[in-house]
């Protein structure tokens, strides 16, 4: 976890700022087609870069790879520190993948202020990449907050609902509310470091560096306090039950492109596995925290699924299904064992294909019926068989059918939760039944049965562009479902390191030799790390 590998070329910085540069470039363009093609080109280039990263990533390793570090505000110990390990690397790929699909989706569905829309989209991509690549807590926090700006405008200006203003503001306020707590937590981590650094005469006496913070002891009581502060930020963002009420509004009122990211990129739970668990291992495994988190997770699984059951609007249904799925993810995280963590991590990635995929399909439906309300559907499978087929494929992935990606993740989570306590597994497994119920019941009413009167007019099946989206998602769904090996290999090293970290805890001063070595590695990566080779 502490080892760092560098790459001959600052590829992460390029990935980070390519979309932003692209956004600036867009500002210079006027013609509509040119803008669209430019955006597509940029997002594809970004995807290629992330694929290079994935291919050159050393699997079965816990090291931070492609590491880059520049001083930013040295007196405060704030640095521009980037790096990817098995926990974050797949998210970078997923973000780039979804951005390409969103660009394709938006091609002819966004009809006004096109330039501004794509500028916001690319800016959003940069901030998300920053969240996943940042290894400095302040840098992370800056991206975390900056993300709100493009998100806000995307929801407010291109949302389809009448209440989009309200939804955008609600989203921003809720996230902001949580992140203030998180910032306090981050500052407390820094103060703890400071305390230690002063005693050991280390300059500078401040640090927000993730890898450095990992090396110092922190008392269990402080850990618990900081855990709950950071929890507030992550729980609102995730969103976890009962902090979730912004999500249905944002997903329903906002544009599909934004909904794809909100539902598909699991920033909140990523924060837990990236920062909370490794930095605060003793808090995470303390019975109070673990059982509270598990309780919230199980509540979310059942609550989300049962509320989803009665939703007449597909997007609202997906919002609650997201809440239920997040419950699974959190349950896996706080099972605190290998299978649980591995399953949670994989499920976070999976949801980027399945839940986000369902939002694309909801978008396809919306384009045809100008609504995602059940009343607008009924028997559509006869009219749009391809759309119905892909809706079924992605939907089955989201309810964890074996053979699809959803199963691998969900199974591992349930197995992990069961090993933590059989009761956790037994309660969580009911989500499997409710999941099938809400999806299939909706599918039955929307797609099957006789063609509804209201759906009488001619509607076209998937266009080539839509087909590309649906097929790419399906390929990923079956790939991870049937042959998850490359993905598991990439994450396993870091998951193993995290499990060991959780076992060891962070209360005690670690033996000097190890700490010195680790600190050296963390402070001067270029000297002590092995040159990276693919």
């Amino acid at each position, binding site marked *: 976890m502490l080892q760092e590998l560098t790459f001959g070329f600052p590829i992460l910085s390029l990935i980070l700022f390519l979309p932003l540069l692209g956004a600036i470039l867009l500002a210079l363009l006027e013609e509509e087609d040119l803008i669209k093609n430019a955006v597509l080109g940029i997002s594809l280039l970004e995807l290629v870069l992330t694929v290079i990263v994935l291919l050159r990533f050393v699997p079965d390793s816990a090291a931070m790879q492609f590491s880059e570090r520049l001083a930013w505000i040295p007196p405060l110990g704030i640095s521009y520190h980037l790096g990817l390990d098995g926990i974050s690397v797949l998210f970078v790929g997923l973000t780039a993948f979804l951005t390409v699909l969103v660009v394709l989706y938006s091609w002819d569905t966004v009809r006004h202020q096109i330039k501004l829309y794509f500028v916001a989209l690319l800016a959003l991509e940069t901030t998300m990449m920053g969240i996943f690549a940042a290894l400095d807590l*302040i840098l992370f*926090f*800056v991206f975390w907050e900056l993300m709100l*700006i493009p998100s806000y405008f995307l929801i407010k200006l291109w949302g389809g609902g009448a209440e989009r*203003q309200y939804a955008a*503001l609600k989203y921003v*306020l809720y996230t*902001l509310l949580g992140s*203030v*707590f998180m*910032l*306090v937590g981050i*500052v*407390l981590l820094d*103060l703890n470091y400071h*305390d230690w650094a002063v005693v050991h005469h280390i300059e500078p006496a401040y640090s927000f560096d993730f890898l450095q913070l990992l090396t110092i002891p922190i008392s269990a009581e402080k850990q618990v306090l900081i855990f709950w*502060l950071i929890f507030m930020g992550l729980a609102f963002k995730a969103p976890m039950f009962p902090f*979730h009420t912004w999500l249905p509004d944002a997903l329903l009122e906002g544009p599909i492109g934004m909904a794809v990211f909100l539902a598909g990129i699991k920033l909140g739970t990523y924060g837990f596995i990236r920062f909370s668990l490794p930095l605060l291992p003793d808090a995470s495994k303390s019975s109070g925290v673990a059982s509270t988190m598990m309780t919230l997770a199980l509540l979310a699984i059942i*609550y989300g699924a*049962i*509320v*989803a*059951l*009665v939703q007449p609007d597909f997007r609202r249904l997906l919002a609650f299904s997201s809440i239920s799925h997040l419950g699974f993810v959190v349950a896996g995280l706080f099972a605190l064992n*290998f299978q649980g963590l*591995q399953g949670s991590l994989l499920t976070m990635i999976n949801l980027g294909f399945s839940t986000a995929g369902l939002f694309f399909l909801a978008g396809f439906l919306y384009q045809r019926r100008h609504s995602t309300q059940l009343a607008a559907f009924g*028997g559509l*499978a*006869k009219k749009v068989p391809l759309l119905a087929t892909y809706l079924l494929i992605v939907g*089955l992935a989201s309810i964890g059918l*074996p*053979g699809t990606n959803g*199963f*691998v993740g969900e*199974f*591992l989570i*349930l*197995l992990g939760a*069961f*090993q933590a306590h*059989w009761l956790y*597994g037994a309660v969580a*497994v*009911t989500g*499997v*039944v409710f999941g*099938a*119920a809400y999806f*299939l019941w909706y599918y*039955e009413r929307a*797609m*099957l*049965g*006789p063609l509804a009167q209201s759906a009488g007019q001619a509607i076209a099946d998937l266009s080539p562009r839509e087909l590309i989206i649906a097929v790419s998602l399906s390929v990923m769904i079956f790939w991870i479902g049937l*042959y*998850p*090996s490359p993905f*598991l290999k990439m994450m*396993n090293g870091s998951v193993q390191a995290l*499990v060991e970290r959780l076992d060891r805890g962070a209360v005690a001063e670690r033996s000097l030799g190890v700490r010195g070595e680790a600190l050296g590695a963390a402070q001067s990566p270029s000297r002590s790390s092995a040159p990276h080779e693919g």
Partner: protein
Amino acid sequence: MSDLIVILIPIFPLVAVLLNGLLGGRYSHDVAHRLAWGSVGLSFLCAIGVFAETLNSGVAREVVAYKWIFGGDLTVNLAFLIDPLTCIMLLVVTGVGFLIHLYSVGYMHGEEGFTRFFTYMNLFMVSMLLLVMGNNYLVLFIGWEGVGLCSYLLIGYYYDKVSAAKAASKAFVVNRIGDAGFLLAIFLVFQNFKTLDYQQVFAQAGQLSTEMATAITLCLLIGAVGKSAQLPLYTWLPDAMEGPTPVSALIHAATMVTAGVYMIVRNHVLYDMAPMAMTTVAYVGGVTALFAATIGLVQTDIKRVLAYSTVSQLGYMFLACGIGAYTAAVFHLMTHAFFKALLFLSAGSVIHALHGEQDIMKMGGLKSKIPWTHGLFLVGTLAIAGIFPLAGFWSKDEILAHAFLHGHFVLYGMAAVGAFLTAFYMFRLTYLTFYGRSRVDHHTAEHIHESPPIMLGPLVVLATLSVIGGFPGVPPEDGWFHHFLHKVTAQVGGEVSGHDAGSGLVVTLMLAATAIALAGWGLAHYLYSLRTETAAAWAERSPDVYRTLLNKYYVDELYDALFVEPTKRLGLVWDWFDRHVIDRLVVGVGDLTHSSAAASTWLEKYVIYGGLNAIGYANHLLARSWRKIQSGQVHHYAAIIVAGLFILVHLVLAWWTGSGGILR
């Protein structure tokens, strides 16, 4: 080389799925159906090869395709186990599957979605083959849910029919209840053995406590009960008859629904260690056998009668498992696959002849019009009723005899009464369909025609199997079939079945079974051939009993009232709660501010920015940019939120100072 043959078995239909699924629209139906049945035929040939090899070598072997899920202490391969039990299942699944595919070419001719039908059927074959071939619980589970999916797709084949769409969802969801139980069993297995491979699990089974073995096997039973439509999760199967008839024959009679029986036999090492679970399995089977048979007595839809009959026959297999007669369970599974597929497909032939009519009250007198179908259906009826020496006689008798000889007299009684009822309702069905006065409406009657050879051919093969399919199991408990399966099904305790009870008793039991079957036939003959008015009179005399049976004991209604409706209502209540309580909590804070706007402005001006400065400039900048985009009352919310936080931060820092002494 031989490993390749094993892997090819599921690959052939998989290739057909991909071709027909992706390109099916580009070529004619003829190409599509040839791919479909051809691939299953090839699988059947490979299965024969694998069977011959196992017969020669007599050892179980494993074939690993690739590493599927791994990490930490878990490794799951996509791998296959080839042993006698798998071989029998492979032959039944691919053999009967092949015949039903052929039959479907004729039956589905001219249907819209012809290629789609065969794609789903082949996908079913792939899943079912994974189910019976897997060497570990998770590969079994892929197949297990895969067949459930195909069942869903095929029940809902006529998806524009509301009843079909509903039946499909119901089948999937009810099955998922069972699957949840199955998953729990898998977790328990992993927790105890740190592996999911059968052979490793069974090798270490001895270390398991009785309680743990009971827990695992009961969870497995929940899964089996769902898939094999036993009480209390049987309700989906009768509704599943909404699918095309070949689907009912393949999935809902011959193969998929027997997966639960296969799974219990596969896990018998664990069941043997859990007497309580065994008793539960036996009684679930016994009660279901009897219960479903009573419903079958009065149903008038030809396929529904057969559906309840399937539930009932599966009950026999469970009963057999529960009393440790695993070989008998597999034996009955096999013969049942023959004669029930025959019955369903002949029923399909009847329906085909009558242009979709399924109500036996609108049939009658068909014997002369479709003689082939009549003859074939009659063979099936004789076989299922247990008439000597057809297949059903041997397998059913073995279960009855085993129950009696091992002192399970209550179960024997249930099974015997069930056998009587089976004979009765099957002959009732035969009489009402083929004999007596024709009740076919005039228009349909003109067009009655015998089915084409492509449909009758497979039926003749199945009929032959229904006649001779019992002979591998003769003499009882000592036939070829028993010796072949012995390695797999031998009980842990080494207990050999008790035919030392004396051949006299065995023969007496056979005679008793025959008498029971003949009695059922006789009663049906009396009521539906000799005195056709009597049955109606009986129904009239006890209308409550009749109506209860006709309405299937109102179990569907009961489940709706107990589970489905309350869940929906709970969803509505929670939805309201979500909108009006949880959502209001934060907005409520804002409302509070609204009434004290002046105070909040003051707070904003003096406290918040002061506070933010204290916290850090990053957030400060953000707050300012945020201020620009705010509108209306929102900044009041924001103000109070930030003010509250500022206080909170102070409190936290104060606490920290007190305990940590960092702030100086």
